[in-house]
């Protein structure tokens, strides 16, 4: 059997461990799910109340079709962002979680390559993110009676998967922060996440943002994920229209993941030189 096969098997350690943790912390998972649903519904409700909030009387503002389109626009932003945030958080918090439990030294002295460690964590994050988002999606669709008749789910899923690669890469880079800054590293990863929300056109078309945000948004992979999924689910675009976006996202992922592992490995070497692995924040 090849080394890659055994490394892949070893990466299942992280998948199985995280599944067990989700099962044991099921109460918190429920709370987290309710929090996410409430957040998503609150964002989508903005569309429903847009005319009232703007002080526009009946007949003068958005019509019902436009409101429905705005609901769908915001719902997709909220859901896709939720998915990307789960992927980013699961990967970037793999270190802070282990610091909190006190197991970090045992994981780091195990004969597992850091790439394997991260592949296992990333695989779990993708599956977990998809399941979590699917539940929220069902509830949002039921509550707002969203019209998904025009949606192209296949191309939307393909964009989501391709875009996840870059987010995993950014998450791995973010994971170096709790490694090097045990006290405040987690908060720093939240700053990255907030910055990504700001520049990626989650609730507004990226190109319509004020400068310099519109220009900066060009460099965020999440901009293309959210834009691509909107095109697939609202306008029904398929592979023939979306392949340049998909290729771009895959290429970005192929750069971001190795870059993330390189940054993390450099951080790990620094932590081993300075004794930062041992400290618990």
């Amino acid at each position, binding site marked *: 059997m090849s080394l890659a096969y055994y490394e892949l098997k070893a990466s299942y350690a992280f998948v199985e461990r995280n599944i067990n943790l989700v099962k044991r912390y099921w109460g918190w998972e429920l709370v987290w799910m309710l929090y996410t649903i409430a957040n998503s519904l609150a964002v989508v409700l903005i569309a429903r109340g847009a005319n009232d909030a703007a002080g526009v009387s009946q007949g003068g503002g958005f019509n019902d079709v436009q409101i429905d389109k705005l609901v769908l626009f915001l719902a997709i932003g909220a859901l896709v962002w939720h998915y990307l945030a789960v992927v980013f958080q699961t990967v970037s918090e793999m270190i802070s979680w282990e610091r909190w439990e006190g197991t970090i030294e045992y994981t780091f002295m*195990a004969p597992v390559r850091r790439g394997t460690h991260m592949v296992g964590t990333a695989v779990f994050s993708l599956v977990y993110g998809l399941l979590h988002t699917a539940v929220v999606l069902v509830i949002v669709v039921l509550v707002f009676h969203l019209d998904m008749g025009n949606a192209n789910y296949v191309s939307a899923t393909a964009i989501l998967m391709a875009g996840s690669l870059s987010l995993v890469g950014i998450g791995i880079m973010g994971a170096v922060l709790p490694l090097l800054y045990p006290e405040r590293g987690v908060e720093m990863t939240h700053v990255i996440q907030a910055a990504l929300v700001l520049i990626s056109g989650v609730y507004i078309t990226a190109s319509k943002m004020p400068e310099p945000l519109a220009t900066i948004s060009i460099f965020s992979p999440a901009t293309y994920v959210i834009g691509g999924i909107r095109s697939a689910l609202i306008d029904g675009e398929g592979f023939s229209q979306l392949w340049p976006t998909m290729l771009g996202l895959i290429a970005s992922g192929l750069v971001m993941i190795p870059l993330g592992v390189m940054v993390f490995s450099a951080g790990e070497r620094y932590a081993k030189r300075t004794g930062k692995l041992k400290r618990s924040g």
Partner: protein
Amino acid sequence: MTAAAIEPAHFQGVTVAVDRTARALVVDDVTKVFRQGPGLIGRLRGKTQERKRTVAVDHVSFVVDRGEIFGVLGPNGTGKSTLIRLMSTLLMPDTGHVTIFGLDVEKDEFRVKRLINRVSVEASFFKKLSPMENLMYGARLYSVNPDYARRRATEILGRLGVEKESIHSPMEDMSRGMQQKVAIARAFLTAPVLLLLDEPTTGLDPHSKREVQAAVLEIRDTHDATVVLTTHDMQEADELCDRIAIVDKGRIVALGTPVALKEMVRTPAEPLPSLEDVFLRLTGKKLEDADKEAETK
């Protein structure tokens, strides 16, 4: 030179060939200093001086032979845990080298990791997970066959006195003594050829302490393992260790068998002194006082 594979049949993946004729552990002139810089604000103000500098390990050298139980005895804060971390690939030495069965812990890090395991003073686990879930996580990381690992984990936990009903309950419900036994089981499960024990019995009740000590002797005898044990328990060091290094302020002040160390400080008129007396005469202080001194720093 002969090289023999130590990989047990139940391990999967890469076999690590070990030179059985090499010394189990060589620590050669190792130094580790922890520094605290001036911080970002300090640097911006032009400060370059270190705020704090702690010499944790100071030019330490010793050799451990295969099958030995080697004790590192000293008060808290004297560099014992740092030494164990240097052997565990968790820290890089500033100077010197650590080799395990001829493999350098920095250059051959991945292969070294397959040969070692560690039990530390804190039984570090995912506390919501059960002993079995924690052990399976460890087993998968070390590429132990999962079916074998499940059977073996039950067997080892049973022998260490962990009750069957506790095996599938969260670790947070267990006493510290029981958690420490699970930590020992986690290390045993991967069949390390070098077992690093960092104060494994500190804080345990006398009964649990004896069970853990018996388990240490068992792994040495039945698994052909070499053991490095750090402790500040004089009696434990005396009873378990073939040789002991007494450390103070990061340096080795004496090294030998328990009897040789006692003979070293014994005056002709007196009976063989205790290790406590040895420590007092070599460092000028009682171990307890040295511990208190370290705590107030």
